[in-house]
């Protein structure tokens, strides 16, 4: 930017904007109209080349336009044509380009020699990695290796990793099958949401769209600090509120007072874990006052009861979890009514600490037939030892009231990573999954994958692999001997970190870390592979509203840094099946010139006809994001007879579905309803994916159960961890942006003012926070941006110099296997 005159620069971009708006005004602008003026590598009068891309941080998926000159990013701007953000960014997005240019980018492969990471050549590093794969796979079989990936993988990377692990390694391993020990850090992020989607609707990911933010009039935020974690989306909620201040209500439910609470009309501060009791009370209220939608219940819902006392995954291998933990038993509506009858306001108030009057006020709002209600949540629900339960309870609320799959009405699980949906969930880079909601344990699903991949079905391992926590425990227990970490920093983000870091250092395990900067994970690696990041390679991300966004490779990576796909292919090339063929010959057969297109079109086959239909490569390359299902009028399925009844299909042979299951928007729903004349479907909503429960969504009966570790005399405080607006995840990128680092240079421990006063703690005092697993010192913040309830402290996890995860607990939800970073017991004292 320094070589450019800012004034000229702005003038030129204003000119292109004017052209764009002129084009837009020529006709009604529809989502999906592309604006070729400022993208696609066009060069403006200042010699700046403009391309489209998407923000590298959270799951909102804000579009950004990237201006480059001489292979360097000289400017970025919000993309007005991306419907997820309409051109706006948060302050992290403002500094996005700087994440490429940190001074300590990794540019050479490093191999640990005599305890020190030493520069090497790619050949040496790749030969070493391949020889380790050979050694471990031939000795220990497919169980001996693991890969820990990411919701920040591009879709291509995740898909390549999936094939590498689940198909490719089967050609080398002793047992002749691939390894399912592939899990993403998304396990720590939204696995509970996934489990609940699958158990409720039998199809993953939200039904709604960000447009709900404009259509709704009642917003429930459940343990979600959207003001800081999804700043651009929260800004839309506030706009909706400003436009109709008397009607629109924001109800914030949380364990600490945040910037959302500040803007809310009603704040319910509940004791950690008791969201279960509150959600059950809302259901109780709905049933008792007959506020449920009777027709909708009759047409579309089935009732099931869950198992109780399901454990916390505290013992290795989940030894404390009953085998039936995830079982759901069908019950009648009458039985369901009886089950929730005990969760009255008095009960919920006693457990949660929320006054009865506030509970009633919230219950009234969420069940009001004249209100359009949306629920939003993220980690508060997902990082929860009963996360699947609480997700399902919120679905139950929306299902009973029929407030679902309609503009402005629905439950919406937000995501924290740019491609948690697009890569981790849609590609299925989990220990139990394959693309498009298919799973390894079902033979028919393995067959689908084997057919698409053109490999023998026997190569795909039917045994579910070791999920994140068990994966890292297995390293400690000597069961996993080779771990490849890509685009993730587990040695900062794992709970009960001391155990896992110690294991990484002391156990016989070979750890490869592919990353762009030195992190706490590269510190324990045997080999560090320098990776290209973000726009240094072609990629796609999929955001929380099911929008897939493509970008071209825009700049070159520094030094010898290479794409993770290249890294995996090079290892696969070194894994010889016989004298002539390698693993790469079996799984990476794409044409070099059309590599990404070939790969995408192959991957896309999984989605077609399953109501998960992804758009073709050429469409994604052109458009500024396309929401799936992107349904063709007549391709895998013939929708011709219902096509005219679908909104926004005029003169189009494709439609992007904004509200799934709703026949007005979703051709699959319309078709399903047409094909089932014997049934009625209230409001034209059909849960056509729920084949295992007669195409009905599941309303779930489970009680409140306590957290895994509860404060006691010795450790009297709850510890909750999370993020701040300025930094993202482990800070490996944002802490390298000088401006963001200056703004928030270190993590602090947020303490309730009453507790602070009682203990004589002032802002800035150094506080030792101690749990059964370790201790860490943080400066105190009292009455700051986050004010925890009495008896709780909050600490963000971005700061690599003060690792809060050294004291967190590695318990997890027995159903989703997602750890609970929000609840463990600590004690605090002034240093």
């Amino acid at each position, binding site marked *: 930017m320094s070589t450019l005159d800012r004034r000229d620069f702005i003038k030129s971009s204003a000119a292109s904007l004017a052209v764009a708006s002129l084009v837009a005004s020529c006709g009604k602008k529809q989502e999906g109209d592309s604006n070729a003026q400022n993208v696609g590598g066009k060069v403006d009068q200042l010699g700046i080349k403009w391309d489209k891309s998407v923000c590298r941080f959270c799951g909102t998926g804000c579009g950004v336009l990237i201006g480059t000159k001489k292979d360097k990013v000289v400017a970025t701007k919000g993309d007005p044509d991306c419907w997820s953000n309409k051109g*706006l960014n*948060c302050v992290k997005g*403002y500094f996005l380009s700087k994440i490429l240019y940190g001074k300590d980018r990794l540019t050479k492969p490093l191999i640990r020699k005599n305890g020190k990471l030493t520069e090497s050549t790619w050949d040496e590093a790749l030969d070493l990695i391949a020889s380790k794969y050979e050694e471990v796979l031939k000795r220990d079989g497919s169980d001996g290796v693991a890969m820990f990936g990411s919701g920040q993988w591009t879709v291509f990377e995740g898909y390549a990793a999936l094939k590498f692990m689940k198909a490719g390694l089967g050609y080398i391993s002793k047992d002749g099958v691939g390894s399912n020990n592939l899990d993403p850090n998304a396990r720590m992020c939204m696995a509970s949401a996934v489990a609940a989607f699958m158990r409720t609707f039998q199809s993953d990911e939200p039904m709604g769209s960000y447009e709900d933010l404009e259509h709704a009039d009642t917003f429930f935020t459940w343990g979600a600090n959207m003001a800081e974690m999804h700043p651009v989306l*929260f800004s*839309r909620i506030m706009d909706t509120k400003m436009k109709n201040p008397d009607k629109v209500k924001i109800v914030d439910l949380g364990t600490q007072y945040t910037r959302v609470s500040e803007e809310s009309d009603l704040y319910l501060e509940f004791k950690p874990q008791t969201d279960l009791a509150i959600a059950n009370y809302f259901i109780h209220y709905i049933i008792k006052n007959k506020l449920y939608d009777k027709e909708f219940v009759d047409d579309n819902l089935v009732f099931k009861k869950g198992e109780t006392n399901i454990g916390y995954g505290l013992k290795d291998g989940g030894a404390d979890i009953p085998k039936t933990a995830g079982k759901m038993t069908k019950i009648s509506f009458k039985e369901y009514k009886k089950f929730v009858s005990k969760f009255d306001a008095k009960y919920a108030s006693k457990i949660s600490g929320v006054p009865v009057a506030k509970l009633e006020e919230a219950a009234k709002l969420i069940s009001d037939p004249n209100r359009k209600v949306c629920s939003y949540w993220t980690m508060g629900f997902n990082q929860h030892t009963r996360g699947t339960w609480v997700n399902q309870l919120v679905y139950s609320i929306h299902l009973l009231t029929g407030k679902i799959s309609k503009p402005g009405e629905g439950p919406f699980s937000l995501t924290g990573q740019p491609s948690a949906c697009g890569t981790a969930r849609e590609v299925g880079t989990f220990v139990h999954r394959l693309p498009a909601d298919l799973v390894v344990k079902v033979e028919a699903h393995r067959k689908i994958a084997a057919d698409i991949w053109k490999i023998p079905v026997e190569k795909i391992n039917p045994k579910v692999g070791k999920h994140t926590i068990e994966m890292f425990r297995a390293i400690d227990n000597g069961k996993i001997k080779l771990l490849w970490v890509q685009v993730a920093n587990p040695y900062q983000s794992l709970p009960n970190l001391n155990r896992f870091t110690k294991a990484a250092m002391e156990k016989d395990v070979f750890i490869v870390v592919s990353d762009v900067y030195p992190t706490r994970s590269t510190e324990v690696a045997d080999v560090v592979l320098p990776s290209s990041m973000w726009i240094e390679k072609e990629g796609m991300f999929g955001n929380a509203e099911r929008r897939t966004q493509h970008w071209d490779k825009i700049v070159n990576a520094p030094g010898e840094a290479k794409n993770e796909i290249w890294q995996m292919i090079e290892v696969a090339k070194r894994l010889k099946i016989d004298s002539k063929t390698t693993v790469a010959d079996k799984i990476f057969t794409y044409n070099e010139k059309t590599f990404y297109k070939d790969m995408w079109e192959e991957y896309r086959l999984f989605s077609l006809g399953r109501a998960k239909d992804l758009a073709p490569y050429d469409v994604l390359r052109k458009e500024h994001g396309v929401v799936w299902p992107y349904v063709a009028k007549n391709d895998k399925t013939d929708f011709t007879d219902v096509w005219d009844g679908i909104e926004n299909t005029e003169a189009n042979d494709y439609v992007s579905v904004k509200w799934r299951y709703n026949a007005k928007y979703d051709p699959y729903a319309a078709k399903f309803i047409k094909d089932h004349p014997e049934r009625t479907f209230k409001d034209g909503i059909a849960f056509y994916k729920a084949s295992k429960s007669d195409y009905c969504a599941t309303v779930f009966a489970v009680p409140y159960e306590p957290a895994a570790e509860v404060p006691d005399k010795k450790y009297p405080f709850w510890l909750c961890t999370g993020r701040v*607006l300025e930094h993202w995840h482990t800070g490996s990128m944002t802490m390298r942006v000088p401006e963001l680092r*200056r703004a928030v240079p270190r993590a602090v421990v947020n303490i309730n003012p009453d507790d602070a006063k009682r203990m004589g703690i002032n802002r800035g005092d150094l506080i030792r926070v101690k749990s059964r697993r370790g201790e860490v010192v943080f400066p105190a913040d009292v009455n700051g941006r986050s004010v925890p309830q009495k008896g709780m402290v909050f600490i963000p996890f971005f700061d690599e110099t003060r690792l809060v995860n050294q004291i967190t607990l590695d318990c997890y939800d027995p159903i989703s296997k997602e750890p609970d970073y929000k609840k463990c017991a600590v004690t605090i004292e002034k240093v």
Partner: protein
Amino acid sequence: MERRDFIKRSVAVSAIGLTGGFSFISLLGNNKTYYFRPPGAVEESQFLAACIRCGKCVQDCPYDSLKLGSLEDGINIGTPYIEFRDVPCYMCADIPCIAACPTTALNHDLKDINSSNMGTAVLTDREDCLSLNGIRCEICYRVCPLTNKAITLTKHPQSITKKHTVFEPVVHKEICTGCGICENACPLDTPAITVLPTERGDKAAHYILLREQQS
């Protein structure tokens, strides 16, 4: 930015009726320059009379926020001052600088640091302020030690996207202590929010504003 430039930065503020921990000095012609004193500093002429240049407040500041004036700084040699963009005042509850002061240059009656008044933060660059441009920044708001009191957010519609909200940071000068943490944290190269000498004009007694009627 050069430290000298920073100190010499000229501003157009009225010098009438100023009290508190800051001072104007005339260096070059009509260029007016100001600098800021530690919390509890008395009115500048009294401060200069009382301060014995012992440097004890500087020594006891745990964050090195306080510096000693040198000839080069154009500040009375040996007197303490703060550059907020460099290191702001982190508002220690026990106010060690005042405790260390052997004279009356710093007001020993000041017990609550939140009542101190080193200056007042002002959104000086409304055009470049990221928050006012709709970027979800508001760093100044969130880092303010008097959260949601000294700085609050006023909401306006985002006129370009028509779908978002502009969160405007508004400083309340009665509450702002002028600690400079916001100025320090502002992510722009030249901070859009800066601490200026507090203006203490007579409050207009002849009219009561609507917001005052409400409160």
